[in-house]
């Protein structure tokens, strides 16, 4: 397993280099002014300030050399400096990663609990009313854009009912409920569908019939025998869904006024603050690869049939 882990980490380096090259090319080769972030409220930069900034950020060098310079700093874990605020991108990530991390974990928990819960209910009530209801509800949840879910939840639970805060961090743990549900709902619906299918298949398998014939309670059959094997694809899926969380967080953090990586990314993209865009995405890619490595390791632990060194 150690060899596998090391190999995966080496793959990660290749993925990071590829992602950074792709993004660098998109951001810096695309037409447009690389210093647009500093135009601020649509002011033009005076020539001497522009010249000083071009010099500071080596924007007059050929792009391949700029990229080599970027990678040489990346190797030293230095992600550069925000054009707009002249703050270290590492510092921005340090500040924001915790917020997005909390949100992502809460969303994952929400996905898991809501998704698996609904999936199990649907699987055991297959083709009955409750199952149909869950199938319809999950279709709606999958189809709705994140911002519609977010604004809808705000409207109902914050503005109409007043149960939860509309936005911000001010209300402690209550503040995270709506953002986490918003972020997790679409994925929870997919998890529910996946659980419904895999558990449904498992419940028709021979070993379940055997377990039932042994006289185990239905609950024990479902949770101990059926669910254990059905969860492996679900967990693998949650790993992949993690990548989507960063994209979703961009919308959710903007709607709910959370100061995380997603919001920093949106702000940077709109302001064309390229070093921040690069930094957040490179960080996101690294986190995604690492989470999926963990998911693979967990899957192997759950299912001895999965061999990691193959």
């Amino acid at each position, binding site marked *: 397993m150690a060899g596998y882990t090391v190999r995966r980490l080496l793959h990660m380096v290749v993925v990071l280099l590829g992602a950074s090259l792709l993004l660098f090319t998109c951001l810096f080769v695309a037409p447009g002014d690389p210093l647009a972030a500093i135009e601020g409220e*649509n002011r033009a930069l005076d020539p001497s300030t522009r010249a000083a900034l071009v010099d500071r950020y080596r924007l007059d060098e050929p792009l391949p050399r700029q990229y080599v310079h970027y990678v040489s700093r990346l190797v030293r874990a230095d992600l550069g400096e925000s054009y707009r605020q002249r703050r270290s991108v590492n510092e921005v990530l340090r500040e924001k990663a915790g917020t997005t991390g909390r949100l992502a974990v809460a969303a994952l928990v929400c996905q898991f609990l809501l998704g698996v819960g609904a999936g199990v209910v649907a699987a055991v009530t297959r083709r009955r009313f409750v199952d149909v209801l869950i199938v319809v509800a999950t279709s709606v949840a999958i189809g709705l854009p994140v911002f519609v879910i977010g604004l809808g939840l705000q409207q109902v639970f914050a503005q109409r009912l007043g149960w939860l805060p509309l936005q911000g961090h001010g209300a402690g743990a209550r503040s995270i409920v709506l953002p986490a549900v918003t972020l997790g709902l679409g994925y929870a619906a997919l998890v529910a569908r996946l659980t419904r299918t895999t558990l449904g298949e498992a419940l028709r398998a021979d070993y379940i019939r055997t377990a039932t014939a042994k006289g185990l309670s239905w609950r024990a059959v479902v949770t101990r025998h059926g669910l254990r094997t059905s969860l492996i694809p679900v967990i693998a899926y949650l790993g992949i869904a993690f990548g989507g969380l960063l994209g979703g967080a961009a919308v959710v953090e903007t*709607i709910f006024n959370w100061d995380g990586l997603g919001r920093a990314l949106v702000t940077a993209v709109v302001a064309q603050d390229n070093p921040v865009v690069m930094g957040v995405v490179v960080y996101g890619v690294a986190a995604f690869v690492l989470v999926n490595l963990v998911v693979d390791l967990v899957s192997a632990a759950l299912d001895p049939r999965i061999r990691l060194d193959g």
Partner: protein
Amino acid sequence: MRGERRRLGSVALAMAVLAVACGGGSDGGDSASPTTAGDAAAQARQGGIFRQPINEPAFIDPYNGQEGNGNRVIKRLFVGLTTFDGNPDLVMKPGVAETWSSDATCAQWTFNLRRSTFSNGEEVTAESFIRGWTRAADGRAISRVAGHLSGIQGYPELHGAPDSPPTATTFAGLSAPDPQTLSVKLGAPDCEFDKKTVHSVMSPVPSVAGAFDNKEFNEAPVGNGPFMIKPGTKWEHDRGISLVRSDTYFGAKPNLDGIEFVILPSQAPPAAQYSAFEAGDLDVATPPVGLRAAAEAKYGPTGGFLSRLPYATGFIGVNVSGATLGDPNARRALSLALDRDALSKAVAEGYWQPASALIPPPFGSYHQAGVCDACRFDPVKAKELGTSAGLSSDTHLRFLVSSASNPVLVAYKDQIEKNLGVAVDLEALPLAEALARQAAGEYELIALSWGADYPTTDNFLFPLLGQGSAENAGKYANTEFNDLVRQARAQRDDGERRTLLKRAEQIAIGQDLALVPTFYVPNQVVFDADKWTGVDLDFFGHLTFQTISLK
């Protein structure tokens, strides 16, 4: 770069720079107390934290306060040499300087400072100003607002230029004959230099400020203003900035205990701020376009709806040196073809005021309503003038805009096409590219607006229309206009200067229509008038925190 250039169509709320609302006292440079609140406010209730939404600033350190969000914070933390209360004659009021004067040429200025301290107890002296201005003008700081100091002797040596690195580390034109006297030598006469000292880049800083790259000070500046960063806190990026009343402030103490600047995402839906206000999370908000009339109906009756014109004007920049619109009659035709009233009703619930001068109404005695006689709607006259100036169905006008789907810009296009029978080609470009195209003369029209950095009309006329200004990209050149602006800078008498500047606008706008004024766009906010009193906006769109108190 002097003024603040922005595209028309972005709601003009965040005006840069200026003016803690100071007032009271006497006119001009006489000694006066910069009190603001007056007797009523002196008896007002103390306490309360006022929560105002802003977007993430770029900087809150005065050396690089370059946009409205940062300047909203900076102007609460720092007070410069002079202050401005929005009076119609643009007369400056004392700030740290109790009195000031210039020599006969207006190139040598002397400011006499009051005894006062920063919030950390350090005394504010002439050296504090020299430190702050030098720190910003230092070429290594790459401050984008340093240009406001460029009139002072020694700036080129300290700042450097694209092809010549800085050769000095001190500001040759600044000196302190004694701790309470600041002497400023300018490179050229400027009888309105005192007005420029309200800019945030001209703030004094204490010795703990250190160099421009002192991160600690960048994130939690120590100033001499009515508020200070809450002790033990600093700028929490994307979250907020907490200020508390400063007991060391030399002027009238604010009634508020503090200000909470709540940082909202700049990309949040337009209604988010208003919703947060209605949910009780904010004490003030800008209603979204489309809901302003409803907001006025809801909050107006109690006095909780404010609408104030800023020192800004929206306009259509014209390539006056190009062949198509080189004839003033062609530009007049263009202006007469615009139905400003209908456009305001269609896109701004009627709140935008049709402009009839470049210098907007808040300039008081400097504003000349109607100086642009072609700023009215007369399609018949427009067509007639257009035809005589050679505009025809073969004419294509390249119109540089921020967005080709912005309803205001589309309406301009439709009205010009319909009333003049020409073709208008909207070309949506990022500002930097639009300005490059403008500089290269590859355009006919560009939608812009301009807001003043300080209360001078020169800050409109010279940058936009003066010879040698980088912002005069339409390349308007009129010798008489340039002479008048130059004479005004050397004119010590306020009345005479006003006459010269008004005459300059009459030539550039009334006679030549070198650009087409379109709208004055008000700043509008709502607040809970049952809870707060004394809430107002200064001409730069900042809340008058020194007069706000709990009811």
